[in-house]
């Protein structure tokens, strides 16, 4: 038996109160982990952007298309370009549930060469290359809509009206540490181009370029935009990082507010725990008197109080993390990826978030017990013993 073991046993003495406090703390940890995970997932698109990928779009607006021949110019006239591809936003909907939002993009044949982090079988790409109406879809989207390889699906066009028929040729995934959206739908640009009116033909949405040397991205960026400076449609090229940052930057105030809320939640947990510990100290004043009579020093009494708080915090942290993992990994995280994959491409509890939540729980638990511990340590032995019933 050690002093800390005695403190830990004391902490579990009032089982109902301790259980409620632990559950309260655990819910706070869950909320903290959930909010931090959402912030991390939101920022992931920026943090994990490829260093060697550039995006080129119309200089005025992203919704204005580029002439298709620009891709040939980028491929042939710009030094340092390893590969280039293009995509167009099609914006079609799943007619069975038009509220389901996913990125529906017409892409060039080589688009998957630009995204090596994408996990997709060579067979699937081979099938897609030979299937003009073929589609490659993200695992989260396929899971959400119940699609599997070989399924025939029809999407209702919005930008490009009509029913668009596809065969699912492959399903891609992505490692958790990447920010790749797993709810996108890729199909052949040629299929789109053949199906639109004459005035809409031979247009592409944006160009994606991979450079040989990431340190020369700035030079390649400048070269691409300079190439089209004299054209009717001028371009703006930026790194994937900058593009993602621009896309997500508008939400920075919301993210900052969420971050503050997560801290407030933990402070509330600290106050609840502090109140519980203060109540326990008041109830056990006579016992602390007995311990002091037996020869325990004020420091020992403080250790008892802090030990109790740390025990409760430890359990709250463990239960909170125990709840957070299944809730996020199998519930909320998958739902966000499937329904808001463009904003939250990969929602996973990171080890840093889990460690931060656990450490914060222990530190705040210790802080919550400081005042009660100091008060308990200051008790006069004779005064404390007088409170014996």
């Amino acid at each position: 038996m050690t002093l800390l073991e005695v403190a830990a046993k004391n902490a579990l003495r009032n089982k109902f109160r301790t259980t409620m406090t632990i559950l309260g703390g655990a819910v706070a940890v869950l909320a903290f982990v959930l909010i931090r995970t959402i912030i991390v997932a939101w920022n992931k698109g920026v943090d994990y952007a490829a260093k060697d990928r550039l995006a080129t779009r119309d200089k005025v607006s992203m919704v204005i298309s580029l002439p298709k021949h620009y891709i040939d110019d980028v491929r042939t006239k710009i030094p340092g370009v390893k590969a280039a591809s293009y995509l167009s936003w099609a914006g079609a909907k799943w007619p069975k549930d038009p509220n389901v939002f996913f990125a529906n993009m017409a892409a060039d044949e080589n688009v998957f060469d630009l995204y090596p982090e994408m996990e997709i079988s060579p067979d699937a790409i081979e099938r897609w290359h030979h299937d003009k109406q073929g589609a490659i879809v993200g695992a989260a989207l396929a899971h959400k809509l119940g699609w599997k390889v070989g399924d025939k699906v029809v999407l209702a066009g919005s930008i490009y009206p009509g029913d668009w028929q596809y065969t699912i040729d492959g399903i891609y995934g992505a490692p958790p540490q990447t920010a790749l959206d797993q709810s996108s739908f890729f199909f052949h640009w040629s299929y789109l181009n053949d199906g639109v009116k004459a005035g809409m033909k031979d247009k592409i949405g944006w160009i994606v370029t991979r450079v040989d040397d990431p340190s020369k991205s700035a030079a390649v960026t400048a070269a691409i935009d300079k190439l089209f400076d004299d054209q009717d449609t001028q371009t703006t090229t930026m790194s994937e990082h900058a593009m993602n940052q621009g896309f997500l930057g508008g939400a920075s105030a919301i993210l900052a507010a969420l971050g503050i809320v997560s801290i407030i939640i933990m402070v509330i947990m600290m106050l609840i725990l502090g109140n519980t510990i203060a109540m326990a100290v008041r109830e056990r004043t006579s016992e602390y008197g007995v311990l002091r009579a037996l020869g325990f020093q004020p420091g020992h009494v403080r250790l008892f109080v802090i030990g109790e708080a740390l025990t409760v915090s430890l359990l709250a942290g463990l239960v909170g993390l125990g709840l957070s993992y299944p809730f996020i990994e199998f519930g909320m995280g998958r739902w966000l990826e499937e329904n808001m994959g463009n904003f939250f491409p990969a929602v996973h509890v990171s080890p840093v978030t889990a460690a931060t939540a656990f450490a914060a729980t222990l530190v705040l638990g210790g802080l919550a017990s400081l005042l009660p511990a100091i008060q308990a340590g200051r008790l006069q032995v004779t005064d404390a013993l007088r409170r014996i019933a």
Partner: protein
Amino acid sequence: MSSIVELQGVSKTFYRGKESVPVLENLSLEVPEGAYEAFMGPSGSGKSTLLNLIAGLDKPTSGSAKVAGSELSQMSDGQLARFRSQKIGFVFQSYNLLPVLTALENVELPLLLTSLSGSDRKKRSQTALRIVGLEERMDHYPRQLSGGQEQRVAIARAIVNDPTILVCDEPTGDLDRKAADEILALLEKLNKEFKKTILMVTHDPAAAERAGIIRKLNKGQLQ
């Protein structure tokens, strides 16, 4: 026989705001080593205050309090705590066992302040429980014991450090007559066989008669 307690002109005054309340006034007392003494008197006569001073729980306002060779009036709070852990065993009226600990763990509690190993602490605690006749109940929690048994566990906790003096504040106050007699017999055994000096505050004349000397206090004075 040498004195284990020597009080010379001890006074103790408490303060309620600006009002002073003298409890002990110029009290002198000598207790020989190995004695078994009972202190009686009406409520407010200063019995518990006197016991607290002898046990090092409090310090006199004036005068000298020499106990087991140590001058308590000059000691810091930390020194008094060490003195209590080494020289004094406490027996309280309401036992004051920690409910979350077994009988054995309650007895072991004071030994956590020593440098003894875990196995030595256990052996000594078992021995103390054997002396009070409760070795069969060492794994029981206080709620599983009768009042008399709880008080015996408390006595085992008081003697486990092999203290010089046992300070007992109404040790039979919460017990029925039969259990009280068993506790008093146990205290006699500790006094006679183990040569412990026992100082007991009690309102119970039957308990006081078991002691070798009965001292009566009134208004802070020994009579």
